[in-house]
């Protein structure tokens, strides 16, 4: 199994040019936190090849996604769950259709199978009652739950979460992290989870396998 995510001497395209050299091992939960101007907010985008680093190489599931042609890069991204900062839900779709979108677009599943899977995910994330509501009609916690549901809908092996816990209580954050992990396996969590954000809720620190923090323009591993 290839390493899910590897930043090889990557210089982020932020003002201070933060240097990142780290690996996200399989079945582990890795968190990188730091202040707003530290470039932490760009890590997920750089990992997915949505933004180019100034220097260095990013390997996503063993592949240098920035070297792939556009169509291949798009197809490759469908193997990774992604929760962007600010949820990124499509405002003109219901929460149900938002969750269904990657399944309908990226898998050859029949509509009946997709419906069955969405029903399970929405129930798991306590969204069954608001499935038909649009993002603007529900609260921030429900939007975040829907965005996570969309990220894990096709059961990816790697999930990238940008600021997933901002504004949530520790209890809800812990619950969402468990959903992102997808249960446990012999090597740790079933899925590999990479989280970026300004800070990690205190309650979650014990559930994280590796923590890094951006200090100055460098990445420092926390105990």
């Amino acid at each position: 199994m290839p390493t899910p995510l590897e930043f090889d001497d990557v210089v982020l395209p932020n003002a201070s040019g933060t240097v990142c050299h780290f690996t996200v091992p399989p079945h582990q939960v890795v968190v990188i936190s730091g202040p707003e101007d530290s470039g932490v907010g760009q890590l997920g985008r750089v990992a997915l090849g949505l933004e180019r680093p100034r220097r260095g190489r990013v390997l996503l599931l063993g592949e240098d996604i920035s070297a792939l042609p556009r169509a291949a890069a798009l197809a490759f991204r469908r193997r990774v769950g992604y929760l962007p900062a600010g949820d990124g839900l499509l405002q003109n779709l219901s929460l149900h259709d938002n969750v269904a979108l990657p399944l309908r677009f990226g898998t050859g599943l029949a509509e009946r199978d997709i419906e069955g899977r969405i029903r399970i995910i929405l129930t798991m994330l306590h969204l069954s009652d608001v499935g038909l509501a649009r993002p603007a009609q529900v609260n921030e916690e429900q939007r975040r739950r829907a965005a996570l549901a969309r990220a894990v809908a096709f059961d990816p092996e790697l999930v990238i979460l940008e600021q997933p816990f901002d504004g949530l209580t520790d209890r809800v954050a812990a619950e969402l992290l468990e959903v992102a992990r997808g249960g446990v396996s012999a090597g740790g969590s079933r899925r590999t989870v990479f989280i970026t954000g300004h800070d990690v809720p205190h309650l979650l620190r014990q559930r994280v396998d590796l923590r890094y923090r951006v200090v100055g323009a460098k990445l420092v591993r926390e105990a």
Partner: protein
Amino acid sequence: MRAPIAIAGREVTRRVSTLGALARFFWDALGSFATLPQAGRRVAQRVFLNQIWFTALQAVPLVIVLSGLLSFLVISQAVRELGRLGATELLGTLMVVAIVRELGPLLTALAVAGRSGTAIAAELATNKVMGEVDALEGMGIDPLHYLVLPRLGAAVVSVFCLIVLFDAVAIVAGLTAAAANGMSPDRYFDIVLRSLAFGDAAVSIVKSVAFGVIIGTLPSFHGLRVRRAATEVPIAASRSVVGSIVAIFLSSALFVAVL
């Protein structure tokens, strides 16, 4: 002396570069059809049908009113004035050349550009500002597949259907106007149908495709060009409608010169 020339040069360069980016955007949007994944076709189809509902079906009352009123006014005046000169035969030419060939496609395209073009630009600009376009890319969904291609296709189909509707309503409203001014329906249809040739319908079809492409492309281009500020949304909508109107008039003039 150099400063104004430099400013004019910069402006020309900026506009030419925008035109180049627009042409590339259109080309990419067309080319994206070939890379649309099989599973994504169902999703794109849904968006396409939604757009047809909004752009074509919801615009039907507006087109009927525009076409009916225009035709009624023009034909009423024409029957009276041409009758006085003993040249009612020219009514058919007037109906076909002025309304079916020129004003029908032009007014329909302007109505759709004002109504749906602004909506497309504002919607896509909001998608961009809210981070939805980035989220789509992050999920491996090409915004050209999900947002642009269905809107482009729907704009072409909608403008074509609305132009056909405009022409049909214009002919019927013209009949009412002619009858109200003492002309028999048989004579009216005889004059109009005699003037209507296959070439006129062909010109209308070519124009509808060209106007549809303009209305599908320009607003999408301006909508997706915004960066992160919400204040750019109305600017994109305004640019798209102004650009579409100019492009529609320019291509209309080109058609008159060429066809």
